[in-house]
Every structure is written in structure tokens, then in C-alpha cells.
């Protein structure tokens, strides 16, 4: 009986291990320390049985490949490594030969089928399978595809794929606001997808725009605007496409940031020195969030809005502090280095990212708020500044002078090779929209 029970237990453990193994193959844990690498192959897009889709089909495939190259945990399988080629008889089993992709090292296979052809305005069926079992990870039809919206459809598919793999597809749904310099004391606010597509200028003011911040509902971007004689809070309204410039007594407006409650926190003068104020929805002063004789700037909030990270010089040089807005208690976060600024809390509230001045320039560090463990995630050369978390709490955008001029780069909470966002240079202050905002 005892032996029988032991065998049952062993069988149960083995079956659980098998289930876990299958589950692990389906998911990528981007938050844990041992992030796994997934190899993905794309079968040739089809517009009929064994017939390759060479118009929009090829265009969509190209953009999907470009998009997926931004995911550090994904390797694209070289089509030349697939013996017998990537053209399948059909887009789903039993017409898909998973073996040849598996032999080429692919864990996942993407198929695309254009049942009505791939020119004009058509639908495409996108499917993702595991190559070792042929199990479907997900499948979806994207309707109304035309030449003009192929990149948008690629973003939608990649967001769905990312969500299926990691549980969060915010990266491909986000739009980054940033400032782009056009000379000394001249910069405006621009938008771009994290892949560098859909790049456009949204303000056209003289003077310098700094520190843009998206409202959580995606309607507004606020920013600091400085001209030759004044500071102002710039407000861009996506519904009217208009920009207003709001001035405050004391002529100080530094580092505005939206709270999850769709209000703005910003450093303004309290009559003696700058303090962090909360503004109401009409952008008027509501109350003080933090003040004191020292410098207090750069507020950043977690997704609950109960905790605010900020930079303060209360202990001498600038350091990162965290305020619990319900109790009012303030604790120091950055413990190393003499000059830590520009905090940004991950939306899930687990990490805070900031820049530290080192003898080689500024570098980006991430601190785990639970353990206090700090990790350097950028390594220059040049100066790395203004880090900002994506809504997925995984990707981090930052500005760097590593390539000569200033550009935006992407890394992750784990660090790793930074990838440049192609914006054309002069780019600073990347700030993620939280997904689903203005397209």
C-alpha cells in the first residue's frame, strides 16, 4: 500500500512537472530573474493553398519582424535555416509542417492567411503555434487591412502576441511623448511609437519644451515650457489639437507629472521656494504634496497613486525619496552615490528607476522597493538620463548621448543591450503613454 502511494505521488509530481513544462513553454516570465529566450519563426504568408501572399502579406510580415526585434527575449529564426522552406500548404494543422521549424530551432510559429487575397482592403488571419506540440497559442482575424494601416495591424498583432506570451502587450500599444531639440533653447513635443514609427510633432512653440507627461486617459500631455522670460505649464489637448500655456506666480514650473487620478503634480513656487503641488483638473493649484527648504522636484506615482517618488536635496546632494501620501511619511530610496535624480516608479509599484551621476556621466539604476536591491541597467558611453517605465513595468525608455547626439533608447528592468528608437536625433524626456492613448 505504501509502495502504491509512493508511486502515485511520484506520478502526480511527474505529471505536474510536465504540465509546468508545457505552461513554461507557452509563457515568458519577463519579470523574474531568469528570463527565458523564445525563438520564433514566421511561415510565409499565404493567400491560397501553397500560394504565397506577396503584396500586403509580405509588407505585414516585414513590419512584424521589425517589431519583434525590439523584444529582447525573442529570437527570430532565419528562414534560410528552415529546410524545405517556409511556404506551407495551409495556415493551420494539418497543413503546417511544424517539424521543419522545430528542426530550425523555433519554439513558436506564426502563420498568416489572407483568404480573400492580399491587395485592396482585406482580412488576415494570424495564428501562433507551439512547434513541438502544434498547440495553438492564439489566433485572430484582423479585418480592414489596407496598404496604409499595415503597420498599425502589425502593432495590434504584436501586442496580442506579447500579451499571450507575457500577460502584457502594452509595449506595442503605447505611444512615447518626447521633446526634440531644434537648437539652443528651442524644443518641441513629439510623439512616436516605441519602434520609431508614426513619428510626428505635436507642438510648435518658440522656446523650450521639457518633461512631457501623458494623462492616464490619453487626452492631455503636460510639459514645462520655458521662453526667454517665463516658465509655463504647457498643455496639449489631443481632442482639439491645441496647446495652451499656463503661467503661475513665482515663474517656476518644473517636471509636471500626471497622477493615476488624472491630475497633475508639478513643482511650483509657494512664494518662497518651489514645492510640489497637486493641481486640479482645471490645472489650478489644489494642495501641496511636498515642500521644505530643500529642493523637491520630479514627482512620479505608482498606479495606485498612493506613493510618490521625488528628488530632494534635504540631505545635501539630490537623492530619491518616497512619500506615502496617505500617512505623509517620507523614506529615502537611493542609498548609493551622491547625485541621484529623475525617479520614475514602475506602474506595478515594485521598482523605481532613476539616473545617477558617476564619474563617466549619468547612468540608469533600478531599485527593488521590496528588497532594496539596486541594479545598474545602463552603461553609457556618454550620459544616460530621464528613465521612464512602460505601462508593462518591464521596458524602460531613456535619453542618452552615447551616439554623439541625444537619442532615445530602450532597455528593460533587467538591463541588457539598449536599442535605439529611431527618432532622428535631438530627442530627450521619453514618457510612455499607458496604452490605448492617442494614436
Amino acid at each position, binding site marked *: 500500500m505504501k509502495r502504491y502511494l509512493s508511486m502515485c505521488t511520484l506520478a502526480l509530481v511527474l505529471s505536474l512537472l510536465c504540465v509546468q513544462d508545457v505552461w513554461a513553454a507557452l509563457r515568458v516570465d519577463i519579470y523574474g530573474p531568469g528570463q527565458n529566450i523564445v525563438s520564433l519563426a514566421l511561415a510565409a504568408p499565404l493567400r491560397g493553398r501553397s500560394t504565397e501572399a506577396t503584396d500586403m502579406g509580405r509588407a505585414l510580415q516585414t513590419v512584424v519582424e521589425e517589431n519583434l526585434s525590439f523584444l529582447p527575449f525573442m529570437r527570430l529564426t532565419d528562414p534560410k535555416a528552415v529546410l524545405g522552406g517556409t511556404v506551407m500548404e495551409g495556415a493551420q494543422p494539418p497543413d503546417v509542417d511544424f517539424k521543419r521549424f522545430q528542426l530550425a530551432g523555433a519554439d513558436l510559429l506564426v502563420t498568416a492567411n489572407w483568404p480573400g487575397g492580399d491587395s485592396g482592403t482585406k482580412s488576415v488571419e494570424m495564428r501562433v503555434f507551439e512547434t513541438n506540440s502544434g498547440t495553438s497559442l492564439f489566433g485572430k482575424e484582423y479585418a480592414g487591412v489596407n496598404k496604409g494601416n499595415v503597420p498599425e495591424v502589425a502593432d495590434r498583432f504584436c501586442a496580442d502576441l506579447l500579451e499571450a506570451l507575457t500577460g502584457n502587450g502594452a509595449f506595442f500599444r503605447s505611444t512615447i511623448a518626447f521633446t526634440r531639440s531644434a537648437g*539652443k*533653447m528651442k524644443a518641441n513635443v513629439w510623439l512616436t511609437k516605441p519602434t520609431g514609427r508614426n513619428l510626428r510633432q505635436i507642438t510648435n512653440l518658440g522656446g*523650450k519644451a*521639457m*518633461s512631457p507627461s501623458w494623462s492616464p486617459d490619453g487626452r492631455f500631455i503636460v510639459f*514645462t515650457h*520655458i521662453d526667454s*522670460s*517665463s*516658465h509655463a505649464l504647457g498643455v496639449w489637448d489631443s481632442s482639439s489639437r491645441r496647446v495652451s500655456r499656463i503661467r503661475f506666480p513665482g*515663474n*517656476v514650473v*518644473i*517636471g509636471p507629472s500626471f497622477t493615476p487620478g488624472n491630475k497633475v503634480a508639478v*513643482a511650483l*513656487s509657494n512664494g518662497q*521656494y*518651489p514645492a510640489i503641488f497637486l493641481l486640479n483638473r482645471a490645472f489650478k493649484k489644489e494642495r501641496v504634496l511636498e515642500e521644505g527648504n530643500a*529642493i*523637491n*522636484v*520630479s514627482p512620479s506615482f505608482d498606479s495606485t497613486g498612493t506613493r510618490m517618488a521625488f*528628488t530632494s*536635496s534635504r540631505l545635501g*546632494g*539630490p537623492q530619491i525619496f518616497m512619500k506615502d501620501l496617505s500617512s505623509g511619511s517620507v523614506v529615502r530610496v537611493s542609498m548609493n552615490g551622491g*547625485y541621484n*535624480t*529623475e525617479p520614475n516608479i514602475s506602474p506595478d509599484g515594485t521598482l523605481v528607476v532613476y*539616473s545617477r*551621476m558617476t564619474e563617466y556621466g*549619468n547612468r540608469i539604476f533600478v531599485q527593488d522597493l521590496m528588497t532594496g536591491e539596486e541594479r545598474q541597467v545602463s552603461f553609457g558611453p556618454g550620459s544616460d*538620463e*530621464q528613465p521612464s517605465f512602460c505601462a508593462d513595468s518591464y521596458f524602460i525608455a531613456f535619453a542618452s548621448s552615447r551616439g554623439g547626439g541625444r537619442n532615445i533608447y530602450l532597455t528593460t528592468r533587467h538591463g541588457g543591450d539598449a536599442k535605439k528608437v529611431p527618432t532622428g536625433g535631438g530627442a*530627450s*524626456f521619453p514618457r510612455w503613454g499607458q496604452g490605448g492613448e492617442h494614436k
Partner: protein
Amino acid sequence: MKRLTLILALVCALAVGFGCAKKQQTEPAYDDGGNSELNAAIQQITDGRVYFAFDKFALLPEGKEVLTHKAELMKRFPSIRVRIEGNCDERGTQEYNLALGERRANAALKFLTSLGVNPSQMETISFGKENPAVQGSGEAVWQQNRRDDFRVIAQ
């Protein structure tokens, strides 16, 4: 013949035009009407900069000397209004430097006020590290960029 007359007329008109331009150029840029003292004061207020240590906004003894002289001039000419512009070197980060520049500008404003200058004669702005006086890197450059500039905005 008609064409020749037209060309001659055009040449004459151009000659007159150049003559006028030259005459305008030789005239003084402005008539100071006895305001040379005011103009000299404006020049001195604008010229003298106040410098700071890295990441500090406390006035240094040399800076206080410069400001004391400015205070005398501003009290003597109460019609003068000055914008004090706080600046930083390139090393710090932008938002923090905007706050630091504000503190530097306000340090000068408070000192001038303590010396009897009417606060309504002054306003402040911080440009952080966005408006360096000298381009480049190294302490010799940074030293010149950690400063308050003084701009006369009304006289």
C-alpha cells in the same frame, strides 16, 4: 532714348538711396540726452555675473561684492528693472538644475532686497543648464556656466 532716360533715373535714385543709408549709419545709435550715467549703470548691472559652486546656491564672497555694487546702482536708478537669470553647468540633470537655477536667482534677489533694493525692481527665471554662457566641458567651462545673469528689462 526713352530707355536711356529710364536707366539714368534709376542710377540717380540708387545713388541717392546709398547716400541716405550712409548718412543714417554715421548718426549716433541713440541720443542719451544726458542719460550717460543711467546707461553706464545699466552696462555695469548687466556685465557683472555672480558665480556659484557645484550643486550650491549659497552666495560666495565675490558674488556678494558684485551684488553690493548692483544694489547701489539699482537704488540710485529705481526705474531700472532687472531679470535675474539662474543657470547651471551641464553636469546635473535638467529638472533638478531648473530648481537649482531658481534657487541661485532667488539667492541674488534676496540679497539685493536685504541691501534695500525694491523687490518690484526685480524678477527671476531659471534656465537650468539650457542656456550655457560657454560651450564645452571641464571645470574651467563649468565654472563660467554656474552663474546668475542680470538682464535689464526696463529703465
